[in-house]
């Protein structure tokens, strides 16, 4: 076995490259639809599940249904039965970037030993409380800090992280505007 193939971050790059090649030939199969359903429990507590999605031209399923409880902490007079939705956004961003780092590292033959991200996002809640209309509801900014131990130079590691941002769906979702349509079907 050559030195290059001994790098193992647990990412099947060959399969990813094969998929990339196949989807270049059949771009319509690259159209995915991601879904989640959310059910109100009580107070600010809700329970969301993900299971099905659409891709490669047909319905797909995760190996099982995943459930996520969301709530607000006690300082908001809530029951704190789960992470806040804004924390879930941070989780989404950090896990998307981290998955990207592993994939790019595998592709570039860089062995990762450990990757740890801490993410912080300041928010002035005068926005969501409607105290000051000049304050936006969302984050004022997001800072992700990576600590990476890998068999590579500082520069190569920086390049991994930069490339991961360039290819990240959640980075794009957070940094760029998206049209959101909310429809209501009343059954009262």
């Amino acid at each position: 076995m050559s030195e290059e193939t001994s790098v193992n971050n647990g990412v099947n790059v060959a399969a990813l490259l094969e998929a990339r090649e196949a989807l270049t030939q059949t771009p319509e199969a690259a159209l995915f639809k991601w879904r989640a359903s959310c059910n109100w429990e009580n107070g600010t507590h809700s329970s969301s599940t993900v299971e099905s999605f659409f891709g490669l031209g047909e319905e797909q399923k995760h190996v099982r249904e995943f459930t996520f409880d969301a709530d607000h902490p006690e300082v908001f007079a809530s029951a704190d039965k789960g992470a806040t939705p804004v924390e879930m956004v941070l989780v989404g961003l950090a896990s998307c970037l981290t998955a990207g780092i592993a994939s790019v590292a595998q592709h570039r033959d860089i062995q990762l030993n450990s990757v740890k991200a801490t993410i912080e996002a300041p928010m002035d809640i005068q926005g969501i409380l409607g105290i000051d209309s000049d304050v936006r509801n969302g984050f004022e900014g997001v800072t992700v800090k990576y600590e990476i131990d890998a068999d590579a130079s500082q520069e190569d590691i920086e390049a991994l992280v930069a490339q991961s941002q360039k290819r990240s769906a959640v980075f794009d979702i957070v940094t760029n505007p998206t049209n959101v349509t909310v429809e209501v079907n009343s059954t009262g």
Partner: protein
Amino acid sequence: MTGPSDGQASGTVDTIVIGAGHTGLAISHCLSERSIEHVILERGEIANSWRHERWDSLTLLTPNWQSRLPGYAYSGDDPDGFMAMPDVIGFIDAYAALCEAPVHAQTTVTSLRCHSGAYTVATDKGDWHSRSVVVASGACNLASVPKVCDSVPKDIDTVTPHDYRNPGQLRDGKVLVVGASATGLQLADEIHRSGRSVTIAVGEHVRMPRTYRGRDIQWWMHAAGVLDEGLDDVDDINRARNLPSPQLVGSHDKQILDLNAMTGAGMKLVGRLMGFQDGIAQFSGSLKNVCALADLKMRRLLDTIDEWSAVSPGAATFEPPERFERTRVDAAPCLVLDLRDEGFETVLFATGYRPDYSWLDIPVLDRKGKIRHDEGVITVPGLYVIGLPFLRRRKSSFIHGTEDDARYITGHLESFLSSQDSQ
């Protein structure tokens, strides 16, 4: 001359070359060397795009010593200078005269068809027939403008480098320049110097110093073999072909044209222009990352140069390696701008060019409207293209890259014609 006389408006030849820019003329030169009868059909004049479709201050990104075409090279007394447009036009005019190129000027191709190996090129002057065609109509015929252009508030002017000539044609208000490639930064710089306030929307870009270790960056890239890199030397040829032009300008003072120079002069940077909501421009929050990507990529280029120079015969004569300051980006770059409230009167879309193939009636375009080809050879036998970015090598985008490509393509074309003859 190896073709019918200029007065003839139709006829049959072995090869038709579409376009009398530097690539079409280079092809003509190589065809003449091989005694292949051909004509060049040109919608306007020789070097028409350089002559009529570029801004006044444009200079080549390559120094004069790199200005060469098959059988022809710059011979002036300023090899390290950069040609302005009148120089480029003179250079190409002189080449056409030297080659006695069979150019049919003011002849616009309206259609290119192929039936059972026979090509018909319809023009506004008459029809030509041939066994082979070389498309040399250029990569920069039309301004490539993103959809977001349609959402610019109506009372703000939108301009592209295709119609821009100089700052004097712009209103006096602030200008948003969209795009940070060579074009975007060159135009931002001269518009800023005209006294207008300039903001630049920055997406992915290629950063490059004009001079490095005392020599022009083009000298290094040439010497270290970067410009000779071919299809097998890059991971993803599509990405290499779609790279924005490097942040360079050909000026006598060897000006470094990077984002730090722009902000140092007082211009503002925002992220990529993503859209408008209620007339308010929205910019991507990815500015820091696109700058980090460009900084890292420039460092890799300089590393490549340093590695080459360390083992090259001239190693002792080079100045020591340099590293450049990272791109300075505000801690929290502006994400939204009410262009009207802020006094913007112009949005300049320096977002690239694309070829015009509206006359091409042979199904050889991919879904992005680009010609499918393998090093200039199109799957339809006898059909070729030249003058596209990274056609065969990184240098294909530059004038000096034309020779290799033209020789390769005309060699292939000659074999094709003789294989037909022997059948």
